């Protein structure tokens, strides 16, 4: 007993334990987790791509069906990241098993890294599955694959951090659903997921520019087709800014012990 190996400055085993635990949770619900977005995406393609898209003009040489692919991926990425990350930390709070994580030799950074890392992993896998599904329906050309992956990872990480704060803040399952359903989904639909904001009347276009989601979708779409509603630099800045904002919220949570410790 006296020859205990003290954990070094980074608790690798602890982070891996949480990460694996979260991915195991994902595996248990693999069927629902993957089938739902695949079916949803397919439905969007049937409705928007085939039925409506055939009557739409092309966007800078891109068919409408191909045009909505980045928006569809982002839509799923937002909601799945928020759901996975918020549920991942809310569940142990709800069941009380959080006591073990709080009493373990893991730092706040390691806890966030493990929970958010696992949730982001799920989201990125999901995003790629949707991309694969979409490529069955339309030929997809990715102009900047590295940037595309970069945007995918950064957005997943950002929304998982956001989800983590929701999971810490929520006092019940209804509150867990509140922000994804009432804030993110509408902003995404109004954020140019299925259209270019250039199609809007000038006044509404200006209003749209206050919607942060516009920048995220536009930047992601630029990686595919090099067409964008706003400059890619603005998109990157907005995504990074949102990331920093969410990171700040998480740092504050652990500084103050907000709703985690008494």
């Amino acid at each position, binding site marked *: *007993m006296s020859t*205990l*190996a003290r954990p070094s400055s980074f608790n690798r085993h602890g982070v891996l*334990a949480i990460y694996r635990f979260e991915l195991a949770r994902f595996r248990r619900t693999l069927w629902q987790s993957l089938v739902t977005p695949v079916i949803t995406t397919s439905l969007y393609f049937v409705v928007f791509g085939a039925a409506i898209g055939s009557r739409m003009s092309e966007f800078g040489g891109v068919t409408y069906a191909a045009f909505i692919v980045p928006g569809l991926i982002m839509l799923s990425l937002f909601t799945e990241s928020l759901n996975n990350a918020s549920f991942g930390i809310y569940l142990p709070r709800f069941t009380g098993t959080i006591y073990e994580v709080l009493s373990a030799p893991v730092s706040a950074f390691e806890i966030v890294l493990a929970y958010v890392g696992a949730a982001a992993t799920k989201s990125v896998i999901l995003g790629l599955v949707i991309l694969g599904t979409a490529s069955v329906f339309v030929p997809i050309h990715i102009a900047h694959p590295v940037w595309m992956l970069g945007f995918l990872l950064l957005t997943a990480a950002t929304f998982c951090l956001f989800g983590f704060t929701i999971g810490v803040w929520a006092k019940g399952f209804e509150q867990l659903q509140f922000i994804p359903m009432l804030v993110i989904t509408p902003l995404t639909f109004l954020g140019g997921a299925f259209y270019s904001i250039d199609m809007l009347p000038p006044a509404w276009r200006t209003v749209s520019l206050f919607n942060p989601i516009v920048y995220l979708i536009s930047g992601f779409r630029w990686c595919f087709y090099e067409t964008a509603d706003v400059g890619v630099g603005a998109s990157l800045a907005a995504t990074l800014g949102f990331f920093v904002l969410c990171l700040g919220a998480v740092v504050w949570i652990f500084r103050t012990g907000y709703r985690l410790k008494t």
Partner: protein
Amino acid sequence: MQSIISISGLTKTYASGLQALKTTSLEIGKGEIFALLGPNGAGKTTLISIICGIVTPTSGNVSVAGHDILRDYRASRAIIGLVPQELHTDMFETVWNTVGFSRGLFGRPRNPAHLEKVLRELSLWEKRNDKIMTLSGGMKRRVLIAKALAHEPEVLFLDEPTAGVDVELRRDMWALVRRLRADGVTIILTTHYIEEAEEMADRVGVISKGELILVEEKTRLMQKLGKKQMTLHLQEPMNAIPDALKDWKLVLKDKGNELEYNFDAREEGTGIPALLRRLAELGIGFKDLQTRQSSLEDIFVSLVHDRT
């Protein structure tokens, strides 16, 4: 006694204004079994939760094996195992996975042999592939103990370990506690079942309304505060205590059929032989004789009662 946990000037006031812990100082020795006794809401769980890192102290210091619980939390928490009062479990996980998770969480590399030993000792080995939600309450309690022991802690906290636990598990648990103690593990348990403390503990701390009102070795505590009582069931009822027996503190009970003698366990000479001789001289006969030593429970009740 080499101290493993040092608590000095510790207080906790919750945001609601509730002062759960008044200024508390305590040393817990390496390898001892320490029982924290107190009624519900006395502050037992708060004290434990602070040491384990779940509750932030308002003021004061705690160190575990020389490591400050705030500054050096990694080192202090790595050697602590906690079995919580409530049955908080991951319902959908298997026993094996949840125990392996705990070991990793506390920074230890995999060690299936150790986990097997822990699970066998807690009669959980056969259930290792079962989901926790399918287990009975007693089995879930065993799982929580297994989780707490997965990383081979040097200090084990058992918060109300036998609340709602059947006789068999209670017996197994005490066997485990003795084995752990033999291995040098320090054990701190909270309970409001006094017989538990009486049976297991080396030292007892009594906590009431957030205040540690007494810390004492169990045997000394019982000597110091323990009252002994002898009851004589008389052959003939007695109306009054004869003057010849004035030297002893005697009380007549049960309509004069019982003679009760209260004495202090600390006293060298109890006076019993002399009393019995005097009774024989006076021709007072008795059918039966009982002696009774007050339990820790009596002591505890009188202590807590005196304060209120």
